[in-house]
């Protein structure tokens, strides 16, 4: 296998990574907005959605971006200007930090941390900071309520998310995301390796907890108390306009995409196809054919869109929880269940 990337000078590699990162974050975000927010939502609500801009309304998002860019970048008079302006960037930063560890193929990754899961869980919560300071710096009572609710909620749902991931880490025996993919595709179900061993089968409880926690991390309905258009008038985003609102908007959907990427790596087998099919050896990644670096991203994108579809489906059909109800749900139900799942996984891992 040729490590073609090594022949490019360092600055070239860095440039490639930046461009790749932008593509990997913004392209899925745009796709999600068009497919789910514009079209799926419209069909669920018996309307057509945007139809005028471009064929079948496909250029609508560009038109919207253009609209937002034209708008004035306002800041309330009593806002803490510097922090107010920084907040959306912190939220978007968290998304870009997350994509860094997601593997899209045997060699198609930005970096390959040994503790990738740990890193992903850590930087995933950076967005809380952005949301909290956005709520505080806006000098708006609704924003403050929204920001505080968001902080409480995101911290509460961070825990079940980490604990759900723990089951996968125990089963795979590695914190490296690429190794987790290999463990799933190289594995066997009762001696039958034709399907690999995607962890969604053995870790189904963990998968459900992870997806619920993702829903809450993204502050999507039914966990959108921090935004709550009808009561807090969009919460911490109330005062933002123009491209700073656009950044919040992109971050919302890009993070949905990135979390779906991570979920598909952890539970659905990631970029891989069962290694049995082509006789690849899981212990040596060099045996995996090079074309997987092209097919891998496509497989990942398919899984990502399927998972985001579920997230959005729930979002468009459910009413929202009350703040105390969702805290109760996290602390009294999800966390004990996740702990139990971890314990059972650990016991079974030792037993077999």
């Amino acid at each position, binding site marked *: 296998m040729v490590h073609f990337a090594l022949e490019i000078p360092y600055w070239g590699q860095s440039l490639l990574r930046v461009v790749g990162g932008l593509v990997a974050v913004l392209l899925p975000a745009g796709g999600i907005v068009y497919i789910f927010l514009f079209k799926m*939502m419209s069909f*669920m*609500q*018996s*309307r057509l959605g945007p139809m005028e801009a471009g064929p079948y309304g496909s250029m609508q998002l560009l038109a919207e971006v253009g609209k937002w860019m034209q708008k004035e970048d306002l800041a309330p008079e009593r806002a803490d200007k510097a922090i107010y302006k920084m907040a959306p960037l912190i939220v978007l930063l968290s998304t870009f930090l997350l994509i860094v560890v997601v593997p899209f193929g045997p060699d198609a990754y930005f970096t390959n941390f040994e503790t990738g899961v740990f890193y992903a869980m850590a930087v995933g919560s950076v967005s809380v900071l952005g949301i909290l300071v956005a709520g505080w710096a806006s000098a708006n*009572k*609704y924003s403050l*309520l929204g920001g505080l609710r968001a902080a409480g909620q995101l911290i509460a749902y961070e825990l079940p998310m980490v604990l759900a991931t723990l089951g996968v880490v125990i089963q795979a025996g590695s914190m490296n995301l690429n190794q987790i993919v290999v463990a799933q595709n190289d594995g066997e179900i009762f001696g039958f390796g034709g399907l690999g061993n995607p962890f969604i089968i053995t870790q189904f409880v963990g998968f459900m907890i992870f997806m619920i926690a993702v829903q809450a991390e993204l502050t999507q*309905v*039914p966990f*959108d*108390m921090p935004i*709550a*258009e*009808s*009561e*807090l*008038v969009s919460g911490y985003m109330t005062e933002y306009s123009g491209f700073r609102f656009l950044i919040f908007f992109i971050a919302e959907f890009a993070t949905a995409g990135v979390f779906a990427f991570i979920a598909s790596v952890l539970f659905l087998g990631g970029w891989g196809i069962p290694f049995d099919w082509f006789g690849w050896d899981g212990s040596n990644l060099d045996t995996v054919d090079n074309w997987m670096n092209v097919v891998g991203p496509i497989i990942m994108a398919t899984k990502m869109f399927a998972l985001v579809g579920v997230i959005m489906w729930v979002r*468009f*059909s*459910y*009413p*929202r*929880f*009350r*703040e*105390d*109800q969702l805290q109760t749900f996290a602390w009294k139900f999800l966390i004990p269940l996740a702990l139990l799942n971890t314990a059972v996984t650990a016991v079974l891992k030792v037993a077999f």
Partner: protein
Amino acid sequence: MSLTDRQQLSYIASQAADARLNVELETEGMTLNIGPQHPATHGTLRIICRLDGEQVIWAEPSAGYMHRGYEKLTEVRTFPQVTTLVNRIDWLGSFANEVPFILAAEKLMEIEAPPRAQVIRTILFELSRIANVSLFLGDLGVQMGAVTPVFLAFRDREYVLNLIEGATGGRFHPNFDRIGGLKDDLPKGWIDETRQVVKKLMQFCDTIEDLLFGNEIFQSRMRGIGVIPADIAKDYGLSGPNLRASGVDWDLRRDQDLPLAWDKVDWKVWTHPDGDSWARCWIRLQETREACKIVEQLLDQIPAGPVMTKVPRIIKVPAGEAWVSTENPLGEMGYYVVSKGDLGPFRVKIRSASFNNISIVPWVLKGVYVPDVITILASLYFILGDIDR
């Protein structure tokens, strides 16, 4: 009690609430203005909330941001012109606003609309109830973050609005009711079309019941929240579905003897013993179904004959006073009309349902959390035009 006294009392109550707050822990309350521009207030209602964290310790509705002075304006209009004004009070069920005023004028003139006009009036009255309440059922979802029901509601309300447009020429403001009858007869084919639309609306009710009322999150947000006991509801002058949800069996359609056709059909007045937000929403769902049933049955019973009695070309209402109220989509809507024998009324007092219904807001919001403020306001269901005439 003058207005300033009332404001002072409100201020004292607010201060007292603050003082109670600081007994155990030195905290600072926050005043949150929900409105005048807020998506949960359906317009420009302002609710001043004093918050301790997210708990409301004191609340006061402040109406009047959209006051249009209809009571005064009626004094410079002739009797037939008044319907144009009053059907803008509850703008979602406009036709229902015209009926009690016309009935009051007819009562003063001692005439009665022909039977055909009475039945058509009742049909249109119930159609405007369906148009109004179906939008409430959709809006209920959007107040709680479920965006889909509201679009279904807008889609299905459109069928009803088309019917109203077909019969009257106006979608929102029909202005169709006349003293002594109706402006026109029904157009050809309208009755068959109405039958189909009523079926669609029954399906819409089932959809909403599955989508929203069957949802566990919805139930947990609604059940046991904003409970109004029957005696409190009566004290605050609640009417309509809000009162029936508290278990009071009171419906002016059944209890009153008006020259309209409700006594000719078989329908049921629903009550609910709980008095919480859930009960108020459920009652409205059932009432939409009952309204569909009423329309369906009345369509078979439209008698032949004229739609207008003989009235003079220039209507002069004899001197006297009359009070007529009907069970409108939002509750009891009544007009006290005083005539001095002129072309127009001397004075009209409008009793609109929402104005009285929101008077319970300070009582019911005390001690609830901010998210529940929204669901309680949504379940009380007011329309701003109905508050700020």
